[in-house]
């Protein structure tokens, strides 16, 4: 038995009951260690623990702003006082949420385009009372939680508070088994408990030593080794495969101009994916300079000749968070246009999609993007390369035609998930369009390119409720996450 466990049993032997705080103060053991020892004793049936849940509420910035007056109270007050006009469209900015709740509370009603006060809000508006109560209390118990559950849930939903929960050992009681163990621990007599440096130096065969036998089935303290994050392990696994296939690893910026992620890749300036809907545009920096005058002219010509619309350099300068990593490939096609072929390159990096974020959806992902430049390359080479990569990951892919503005022919990679039977899209690839090669200065060579998603593959490697779990870095999750096979 561990010394902490013996110590705790010793404390409990006298009064048989103690609280968590009592154990900690009497034993002088730190809280973490005490909790560990208590857990062990409980698992061996030596003590009983009556747990109480304790809660605390943290007010969000919005919540803090509501303590004095809720927006629905404000709307009702202002309507009552005639401070605001009754037309909805003239309501002060940000009063939308107030109107919704005031209506829900039946304080106001909406008649045509106007607002009208039905009744004045009560002096003690329950939401404000509860919010105030929660901000004053450091901690509250399960009873309070149960009594106010509906109200608290409303406040959580309105994002005014966040609730945190923890377990507190309210009462710890020693059992008969515990009492017995406490006794025997002190009756070990002449047996050696721990080997010491001194005992080793005095040891002789004649005298020997009587070692106390341990219960080898007794639980031990859990060890949590420091670990590398599953996503890093997996990215390194993917990098290793491309390196072994003879690809050189490169990198590029995530803060990019539209020029490199769209224009250089033959995406017309009025293309829907370039609209605000899907791409993160930046307010600082707003624009990124496109240095090379000659290149800019060539890309402009490429667009105006083929898409026939007007090409605006102002649009091309807009700063964005790259929506794919193919911009890196565009940079390298340009910088290596005259370098001796063949060349194989890949990059692994962050990409961004302007999505609504929730418990299941993220706005950033990783992508591996690659490029093969050579004299005698063809579509079948590309198919071979992709198949080989996925084979190494144990995935049997299928390919189908697909449209991406910068490749021709283009293909899409899919695999069928064995468990769900679902067809999952893994990425796209193709032969870079001649127009792009010409504009970037590549002569007489073919360029094969691919862009592959990473996160989706992770679901095959480890159990994962959603991608959001990956970025939470919950310590418990990191400690217990299934190790990815390298």
């Amino acid at each position, binding site marked *: 038995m561990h010394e902490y466990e013996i110590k705790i049993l010793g404390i409990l032997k006298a009064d048989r009951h103690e609280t968590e705080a009592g154990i900690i103060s009497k034993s002088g053991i730190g809280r*973490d260690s005490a909790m560990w020892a208590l857990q062990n004793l409980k698992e061996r049936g030596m003590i009983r623990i009556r747990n109480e849940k304790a809660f605390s509420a943290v007010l969000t910035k919005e919540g803090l702003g509501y303590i004095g007056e809720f927006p629905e109270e404000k709307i009702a007050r202002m309507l009552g006082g005639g401070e605001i006009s009754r037309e909805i469209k003239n309501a002060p900015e940000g009063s939308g949420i107030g109107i919704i709740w005031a209506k829900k509370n039946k304080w106001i009603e909406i008649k045509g385009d106007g607002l009208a006060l039905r009744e004045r809000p009560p002096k003690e508006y329950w939401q404000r009372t509860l919010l105030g109560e929660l901000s004053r209390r450091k901690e509250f118990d399960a009873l309070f939680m149960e009594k106010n559950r509906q109200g608290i849930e409303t406040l959580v939903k309105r994002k005014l508070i966040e609730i945190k929960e923890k377990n507190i050992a309210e009462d710890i009681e020693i059992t008969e088994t515990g009492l017995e163990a406490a006794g025997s621990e002190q009756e070990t007599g002449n047996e050696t408990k721990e080997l010491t440096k001194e005992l080793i130096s005095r040891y002789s065969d004649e005298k020997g030593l009587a070692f106390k036998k341990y219960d080898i089935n007794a639980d031990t303290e859990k060890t949590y080794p420091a670990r590398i994050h599953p996503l890093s392990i997996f990215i390194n696994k993917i990098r290793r495969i*491309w390196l072994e296939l003879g690809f050189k690893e490169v990198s590029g910026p995530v803060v990019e101009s539209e020029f490199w992620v769209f224009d250089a890749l033959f995406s017309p300036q009025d*293309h829907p994916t370039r609209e605000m809907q899907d791409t993160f545009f930046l*307010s600082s920096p707003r624009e990124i300079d496109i240095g090379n005058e000659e290149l800019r002219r060539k890309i402009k010509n490429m667009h105006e000749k083929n898409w026939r619309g007007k090409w605006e350099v102002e649009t091309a300068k807009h700063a964005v968070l790259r929506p794919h990593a193919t911009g890196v490939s565009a940079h390298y096609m340009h910088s290596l246009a005259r370098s001796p072929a063949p060349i194989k390159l890949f990059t692994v990096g962050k990409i961004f999609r302007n999505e609504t974020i929730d418990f299941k959806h993220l706005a950033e992902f990783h992508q591996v993007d690659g490029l093969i430049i050579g004299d005698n390359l063809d579509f*079948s080479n590309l198919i071979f390369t992709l198949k080989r990569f996925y084979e190494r990951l144990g995935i049997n892919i299928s390919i189908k035609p697909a449209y991406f503005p910068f490749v021709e022919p283009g293909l899409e990679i899919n695999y069928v998930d064995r468990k769900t039977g679902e067809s999952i899209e893994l990425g796209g690839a193709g032969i870079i369009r001649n127009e792009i090669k010409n504009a970037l200065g590549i002569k007489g060579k073919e360029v094969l390119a691919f862009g592959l998603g990473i996160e989706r593959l992770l679901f095959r490697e480890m159990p994962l409720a959603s991608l959001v779990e990956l970025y*939470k870095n919950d310590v418990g999750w990191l400690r217990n996450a299934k190790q990815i096979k390298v």
Partner: protein
Amino acid sequence: MASIIFLLKDLEDQGLDIGMLEIMVPKIGMEIERRDDTEIAIDVTPNRPDLMDFTGFVRALKALAPSLEGEKQGATIRKHVYKIENEPLANLHVNKNTKKIRPFIGMLIAKNADLGGGRLQYLLNFAEKLSDTLGRKRKKFAVGVYDFDKIKPDLFYDATQNAKFVPLGGNAEMSFSDILKRHEKGIKYRDVFNAAKGGKPLFPFLKDSEKILSLVPVINSEYAKVTENTKNLLLDVTGTSEQGVRQAVNIFACSFMDRGFEVYPVRIYSSGKTTTTPLLEHRQIKINARDAGKKLGIGIDSNDAARLLGMMGYSAEINGGNIIARIPEYRSDIFDRQDVIEDIAIAYGYGNIPPKPIQGSFEGRADRARELANELSGFMIGLGFSEAVNAYLTNEKINFENMQIDAGEKSRVSILNAKAEAVTMLRTDLLPGILSNLGASLAEKMPQKLFEIGSVFSLETGGEAHEQLRLAFASEHSRSNFAEIKSAIDSLLKLMDIEDIGFKEEKSNVFIEGRCAAAMSGNRKIGIFGELHPKVLRAFGIEEPAVAAEITIREKIEYQFSI
């Protein structure tokens, strides 16, 4: 991607059952988005708007069907060409008022139309989808249809400040300005007009010799409404893109001819010039079968290539070693030879192309920054810290406020248009992420130790984005203290072989005063560490004492694009 819905029953009537669709739709490069017992939704990529049309979809799949029998068998060489030989059936007069706001217009008339049995709905859906996607929400171009029998030619395309008509589905006259203010379609599309400079705005409209047919491209009038019983159709496309307008008219012309309607042109008088539409382009591209095969890695001869082209709707003529490929008149996505070669590959079947290894020897080489990060991760694991990977995207609350930093003066990369409120900027430091992680792991056993290596972003004085590589770590438990973090950072810097390591007292809102230090390499500050201030701990919801450090690994990441 645009999603278009067809009834399975209608496809079956055309010889396309569900088994066939499941094979053919991916084969042609589209996707089945979903299906149930009665209907199927197809995701159509923007390069093939012709497939959003029921007739076009059936035409394409039936042509490709022989490819199922094997890559070289099946279809004969196709010779069909879409031609309109009828004389114009109406005149359209374009007023120069339209020049600055929506200058281009094309029309056609289809006689002996049969719009019963759901065909009208398909036509309207397609017109709507086409205007929405390729037409860029009606801005680039939009399609309208009218019952030609109710119209009294000639036709006029003009623009005015205001006028009145009964909008589709309505029973009373409304003025243009009322429609744009109140009508559902008016509100939806009022932003499509190019604002004319100076003066009051003009709105384009179409009329016959008596009445207004539509407020272009917002809504038609009730007067020439198309019904399932309509026998003769007028179709117009107006827009700001000449090419877009022409292509849209042509797609409909081909579709109507395939349906067996008789297509008649319209004569257009504009700025003293006379033209007729549709103007079908009979484009040809010369292809060499061997070159095409070489690009794809397959062996095909001229006969194979010509037949494969036929399966994609091309007519072809073999001319010595070359093939003259006639591009289907409804296709607008064929720029040159490479696009034709892709169509050969689609007909051949991607799955039939044998994968072939690349010749030559290649040396892989890892990115040095990435390898450095891996090495540092090894050091941190040795020190007992687990790795965290946090998002680059964050917000001022987490990144600054929680750290007790005044956000106002701090330079940062800011997002203009995020859909999610929680996302406003790129992180400027790593610690806020790690501290958020600790705050969310209260229930776990202590000590909790995390590290992260990654990029952070700020702005340079010139306003350009500045990317740095950083390493941060934190340790939370009841007995964490300054000595622990100093010891960790000291051994880490030694492992990193940093020259002339030293420590200097430092002040920061993040740490407790007097328990915070800068890590130095000579005179250069490379990091900061100490005991986290209770304000910071509370802001992140961390309950136990914690210590933390953040050091700069690369002062500035610059991309050279060289190998």
